[in-house]
């Protein structure tokens, strides 16, 4: 059976190649110090493929306002954050509500690698080899009742370890949500690692959501609560600026953000912008979830 869940096998960089990739990047970087032109030429890739974004960029260029609003803040400020021990509170319309130790919660669920495009609402993108579990397998284990129509996630609130939470930038803690059919879609995962390693703190350790056909801000980080609910949950950016950020937040080149055209994006490491794909290139797998919906209204 063909599993429709990620970038086709042909597009995936073999592990041994990506493990060697940092070495390659270092060499390229060293070359760039001496001569700029060849390195820029190597980056010019207008309609390019989905080569992996270097580990260093994935882990130093982050939007994670709990650790500060500059892109480099999370990598600078997340060092003292403690992702273990970690508990996740499961509540709402679910057969097995409880506070779970994270390791117990995920025990026995296969950790898979998924290479996904990540498209930020700010019109930049990356390709990241995540490690994680399918959210569906966790939901199956928790057994929500038929009243559960949505799932709500909450980020940890630890102002002592998260300097961004000491300022009134967003209403803390961060919350996000998915419709149940989105949550159980085979593409949706809870990531616990990237590049074959444990998830770095600045990328949302120890547990974060990845929904590759949606803008990055749906990918809530450092999850401490999962609630199964009947009504559509709030999501933080929608609360802050409802005209800019919707609940669905599906990647859609036809629906512009008031501050950014969403028609194109810059893949990190490339010079030219490239066209943004409907549902971030996952339309074949997910478009059916939204048949009959006005995606202009439900942005």
């Amino acid at each position, binding site marked *: 059976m063909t599993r429709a869940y990620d970038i086709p096998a042909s597009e995936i960089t073999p592990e041994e190649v990506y493990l060697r990739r940092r070495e390659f990047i270092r060499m390229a970087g060293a070359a760039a110090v001496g001569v700029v032109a060849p390195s820029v030429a190597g980056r010019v890739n207008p309609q390019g493929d989905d080569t992996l974004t270097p580990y260093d960029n994935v882990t130093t*260029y982050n939007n994670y306002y709990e650790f500060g609003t500059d892109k480099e803040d999370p990598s600078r400020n997340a060092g003292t954050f403690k992702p273990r021990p970690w508990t996740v509170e499961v509540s709402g319309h679910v057969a097995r509500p409880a506070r779970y130790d994270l390791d117990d919660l995920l025990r026995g669920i296969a950790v898979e690698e998924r290479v996904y495009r990540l498209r930020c609402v700010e019109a930049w993108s990356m390709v990241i080899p995540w490690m994680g579990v399918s959210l569906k397998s966790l939901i199956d284990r928790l057994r929500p009742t038929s009243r559960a129509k949505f799932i709500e996630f909450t980020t940890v609130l630890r102002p002592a370890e998260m300097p961004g939470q000491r300022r009134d930038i967003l209403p803390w803690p961060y919350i996000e949500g998915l419709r149940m059919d989105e949550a159980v879609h085979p593409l949706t995962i809870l990531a616990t690692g990237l590049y074959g390693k444990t998830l770095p703190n600045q990328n949302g350790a120890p547990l974060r959501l990845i929904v590759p056909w949606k803008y990055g801000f749906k990918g809530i980080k450092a999850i401490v609560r999962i609630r199964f609910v009947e009504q559509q949950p709030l999501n933080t950016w929608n609360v802050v600026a409802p005209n800019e950020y919707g609940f669905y937040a599906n990647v859609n080149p036809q629906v512009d953000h008031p501050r950014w055209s969403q028609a194109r994006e810059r893949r990190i490491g490339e010079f030219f912008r490239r066209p943004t794909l409907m549902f971030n290139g996952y339309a074949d797998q997910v478009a059916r979830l939204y048949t009959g919906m006005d995606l202009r209204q439900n942005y």
Partner: protein
Amino acid sequence: MAFVSRFTLHDSRVVKPLLFVACLIPLAVLIADLLGGRLGAEPIREATFRTGEWGLRLLTATLAVTPLRRLFGWNGLVKYRRMLGLFTFSYIAIHFLIWFAVDQFFALKYILEDIAKRPYITVGFTGFLLMMPLAITSTAGWVRRLGKRWTRLHALIYVVALAGIIHFTWSQKADILRPSIYAGIIVVLLVVRLLPKGLLRRYRSEPGTSGSDATGRLRVRSTASSNESRASCSSRAGAWAAGNS
């Protein structure tokens, strides 16, 4: 020391080239960081941010010249205002060109759409356009030719400052701390300008408030100028000043 401060640091022939070089430092650092790969994961965005913020810093410095003269009597500063203004324009022009020629890569369709549809770009672009006549008429010839109209034209700098602050603020998703700091400084500078002139001149002429390196001759001159100003200010302020001396 006295020799240095009186004949060197107060000599605009020495200070001007120094200031010129100083204003080029942010650009030099930017180029060095670009060549050294130190602009992070999105170098174009970083270069756009840096040039934009340096433009705003220099604009703030330009706007500070008159308030500093009024507050502290540093009238010599006026000799550097044109250079500060032109560097402001240069950094904003580079900021614009990075967006236009590198980030958007001359894609006019998207550039025009952005200018028309994204409010922060509309405002920023308007501010940039408004700076052009100011840069063009900055020469001595234009100052002479325009006379009083030159001052009125160059009052546009306040509109430019407002546009810059709005552009910066609206470009931020949630955290507006940095644009707020610039807005605060510029508001203070404006308030200083709006204070009654007589009040400030009197404050300046208090003994000990003028520069400690000022010679007796300079002090005499400053007293003379403050007498002039008393004569010319409104009767109420004049009476107040006279009553206190």
